[in-house]
């Protein structure tokens, strides 16, 4: 079986979630890695060092400076002939793109794959992760988005492992035009790849108090997460939302502060290695998944915690 992994990157750096996709793909067959972008040679050079891959394909063209799903899917459609499986991370990038490729190929996509059973059989979460479905595909080709937290990142070595091939852009006219990106410019680690995450919920009470969560995250060198309630209340921007409809995370340490733990939130973080919950309500559902629970007023507990961590 030949597989193609669509990388996610910002033209200078490879998104680490791609390495989980490579691991998933390697369980299906030989792995080629595709980089589509503009002035993205650095990403290609780095990707060539990913352990165990066969080829790196690069399509470096101004057309893909801010690629749309419409333009990318046209390129992928041309490449798909050579592969038995095409995979991408189950991020907003991959989710936006892959169903287009699937329907062009008349394939039923398998979303959010969290385990490979055999070359045609996979596990995937449904109902916000409250059930796991095992599905076997009857299609000739596989189109897959990968729940990257479920796969260890394939290591990236020091030396080039795979040849880099250049491929041509596929220009298409689209009814859609890119206007602008408005991205979070903080220096904190990215939520989906951070090893420590401090997350806040509605218990914080207001946007100003959310700085308690941010300060604790900074002290631990972690990323900042939030519940849907906290985002909806305007405490913090949408890209921090963890849960069924936000980001899926699985850090080494997840600290949930003033966050009740609705099932939609638990869906996004319950695979974390260690979960700590700090909440004044002893009946909050978050305590059912927490390794360590502290029933306390967060406005007292967080400053105390910050102090204790200094020692």
């Amino acid at each position, binding site marked *: 079986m030949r597989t193609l992994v669509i990388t996610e990157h910002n033209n200078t750096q490879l998104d680490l979630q791609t390495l989980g996709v490579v691991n998933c793909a390697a369980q299906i067959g030989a792995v080629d890695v595709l980089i589509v972008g503009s002035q993205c040679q650095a990403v290609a050079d780095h990707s060539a060092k990913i352990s165990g891959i066969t080829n790196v394909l690069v399509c470096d063209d101004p057309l893909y400076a801010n690629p749309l799903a419409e333009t990318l899917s046209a390129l992928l459609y041309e490449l798909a002939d050579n592969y038995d499986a095409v995979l991408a991370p189950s991020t907003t990038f991959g989710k936006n793109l892959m*169903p287009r490729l699937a329907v062009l190929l008349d*394939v039923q996509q398998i979303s959010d794959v969290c385990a490979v059973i055999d070359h045609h059989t996979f596990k995937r979460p449904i109902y916000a992760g409250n059930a796991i479905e095992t599905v076997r*595909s009857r299609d000739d080709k596989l189109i897959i988005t990968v729940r990257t937290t479920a796969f260890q990142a394939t290591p990236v070595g020091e030396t080039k492992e795979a040849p880099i091939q250049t491929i041509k852009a596929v220009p298409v006219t689209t009814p859609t035009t890119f*206007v602008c*990106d408005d991205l979070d410019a903080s220096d904190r680690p990215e939520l989906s790849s951070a090893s420590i995450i401090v997350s806040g919920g509605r218990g914080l009470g207001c946007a100003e108090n959310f700085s308690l969560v941010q300060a604790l995250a900074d002290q631990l060198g972690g990323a900042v997460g939030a519940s849907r309630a906290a985002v909806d209340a305007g405490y913090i921007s949408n890209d921090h939302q963890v849960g069924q409809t936000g980001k899926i995370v699985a850090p080494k340490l997840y600290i949930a502060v003033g966050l009740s733990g609705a099932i939609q939130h638990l869906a996004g973080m319950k695979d974390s290695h260690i979960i700590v919950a700090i909440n004044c309500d002893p009946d909050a559902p978050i305590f059912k998944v927490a*390794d360590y629970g502290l029933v306390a007023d967060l406005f007292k507990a967080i400053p105390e915690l910050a102090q204790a961590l200094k020692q």
Partner: protein
Amino acid sequence: MKILVAIKRVVDFNVNIHIKPDGSGIETDGVKMSMNPFDEIAVEQAVQFKENGEANEIVVTSIGSLKCSDTLRTALAMGADRGVHVETNSHLEPLCIAKTLHAVAVQEMPDLILLGKQAIDDDANQVPQMLSTLLQWGQGTFVSKLDIIDGMAKVVREIDGGLQTLQISLPCVISTDLRLNKPRFVTLPNLMKAKKKPIETVSLESLGIDPTPRLDILTTSAPAPRQAGQIVNSVDELVDRLRHEAKVI
């Protein structure tokens, strides 16, 4: 502007689901069913466009069993004008749903199609993107802000790093995210009025759709449970445990 909204009937988001003991799926008998919450947001957006004069007709469509007409009634009570029920008892996958909606869209020829970004049952997040591809219309997914200006949709999308703005010519397909709006409650008088609004029923076969699944669901099981944790008594104990027991800081 004519708007088509696609809605799905799903297990209510407040219900704790139960997996059938034989692993054949999720228990839905006697379980409260509702409109997929993301689709409710899509209906609300359409109704707001009608209220401010930007839309003149809202058609809602749903695919599934007889009971889907209840879900369509809810959308009509929110303010949609008429319903199209594609009736089938087959379990349809997203690819097939997209083909069916494509057939409905070709008949209705709307200027805008709105639908939720994902259904909260299968969490697939595929149908809007597939539908846009089949129609060769522009695609705006995970939309948290939508304005129609001079025949163009200006959309703000929620993406992993923040927000992205796109401009898309009509007709186009838009999938709605949580923060686009807060759907209104359906009132009893409106529900009564909605009973007079027409719902056309069509069969899947009449649209030329083959429901044969591409995926065999071998089993449905519970996720690995997390072990119950422990309550610590103080911040100092917590830090001590994190340092010496869990060794994560």
